[in-house]
């Protein structure tokens, strides 16, 4: 906490090789089971991706890691602390050491780019204005948007908004950043910029990165480790090379973008012939 106030590098509670340990995770929205006994290990200092078809609960998984949702069963341990068993104050202290980059950026629309990045610093530190200004400009320089400091979020493109959100995410020098669909809806240049930023920030700041996405091509280029989720379970995991040569039908269908397979093309329906003849 004190180190964060002084702008030091990410503070960690322990040196465990795994920064996130998920065991027996079960989570349901009403009758719909999203996760049914999921085990995931996120290694410290690496970029790990969580892949899966749309609607498999990838964003939900990030919210479970961040303690914004409570699982029905199982445990989510982040940096040695079970996020569902610690107090609200302890959870907030833990959150100062992690960041979540939302798909929309979640920038505060009434604040300028500068003030958006300054927000966590103003909330959690008592730095003099001159130092705070320098820190914000350094974060904006890292994402290439120092010149956009006076713009409002409404004046930014989608890619710029995500870069500002990324600058804000690293404002407190977290130990881990979670990215929710960082490439979705971006042009190829912006995708390249974001990929480069994720890799650079991870390596130079000593972070751990978790990327939730279904952009296979981009993920295989920057990830150290991949998990694939489907039907509420982990259906495959390993390095990008392992995943490319996986025997699993789920993984093969997803990695190759095949229209039919374990994830069926057709929504469940009665027999086609019976359905057609029923109207005769």
């Amino acid at each position, binding site marked *: 906490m004190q180190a964060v106030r002084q702008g030091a590098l990410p503070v960690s509670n322990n040196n465990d090789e795994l920064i996130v340990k998920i065991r027996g995770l079960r989570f349901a929205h009403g009758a719909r089971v999203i996760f049914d006994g999921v085990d995931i290990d996120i290694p410290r200092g690496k970029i790990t991706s969580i892949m899966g078809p749309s609607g498999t609960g990838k964003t939900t998984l990030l919210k479970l890691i961040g303690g914004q949702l409570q699982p029905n069963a199982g445990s989510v341990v982040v940096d040695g602390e079970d996020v569902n068993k610690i107090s609200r104050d302890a959870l907030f202290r833990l959150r100062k050491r992690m960041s979540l980059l939302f798909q929309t950026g*979640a920038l505060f629309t009434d604040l300028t780019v500068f003030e958006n990045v300054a*927000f966590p610093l103003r*909330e959690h530190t008592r730095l003099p204005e001159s130092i705070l200004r320098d820190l914000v400009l350094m974060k904006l320089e890292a994402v290439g948007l120092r010149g956009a400091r006076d713009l409002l979020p409404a004046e930014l493109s989608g890619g710029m908004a995500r870069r500002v959100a990324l600058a804000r995410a690293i404002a407190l020098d977290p130990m881990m950043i979670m990215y929710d669909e960082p490439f979705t809806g971006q042009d190829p240049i912006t995708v390249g910029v974001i990929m480069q930023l994720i890799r650079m920030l991870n390596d130079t700041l000593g972070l751990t990165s978790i990327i939730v996405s279904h952009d296979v091509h981009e993920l295989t280029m920057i990830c150290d480790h991949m998990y694939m989720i489907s039907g509420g379970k982990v259906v495959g995991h390993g390095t990008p090379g392992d995943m490319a040569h996986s025997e699993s039908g789920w993984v093969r269908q997803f990695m190759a973008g095949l229209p039919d397979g374990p994830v069926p093309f057709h929504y469940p329906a009665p027999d086609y012939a019976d359905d057609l003849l029923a109207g005769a």
Partner: protein
Amino acid sequence: MMDWLQRLGSTSLSVFERLGRGNLFLLRVLAALPSLVPRPGLVIAQLYSVGVLSMMLIVISGLNVGMVLGLQGYNTLVDFGSEESLGQLVALSLVRELGPVVAALLFAGRAGSALTAEIGLMKATEQLSGMEMMAVDPLKRVVAPRFIAGIISMPLLAAMFSAVGVLGGFFVGVGLLGVDSGAFWSQMQSKVDLYDDILNGVIKSVVFGFVAAWIAVFEGYDAVPNTEGVSRATTRTVVHTAFAVLGLDFILTALMFGNE
């Protein structure tokens, strides 16, 4: 018949569940209020958007209501030759009832709906979730300053409404219809009591401000985070505040003035 009973039961349960959620939310907001003490700037910013920006509406409405009261009051009183009592009629009507009630209804329409829409949209665009993930409690940073600003603003706006209304009544009664100026003010001064009338009016406006601000911030925080959800929440804020203010007004009036 069974369907009807089932719907009635389901609706009742949902109403009580929501009421319980609203009360728990209020407790959490009240617990968050002390966190504002070292950060008065947050409240001042909201006082501007909730209070100052509502002033024009309140002043114009108060002036018009006062002028109508002056005109209608004169037409009634002149039949009994007691048009000198116009000042008393206008002032009591405004201070006891119209000031707090109409100002609260206007407050709900102008500031309450804006608070709900703002908080609801922050929720829909994940700004509140983003704040939580930055270890900043939205109840302390977003909700509590708006809630307390509503409670502070409402009595001031109601007082402004009543004061401007009296001036409107004076303009019509004395300026246009020829009521004696001295009689207008002296009748008002002798018949309007500081405690029985003005203080009770202030109490009403504080209660209405509390309820209006509570409903506005709760509806925003509890809104379904999409376009339709925010739209419905904004409508609910205006409708529920109107019901609550009018219902509470009757109860408070009965308690304050029932034995006169």
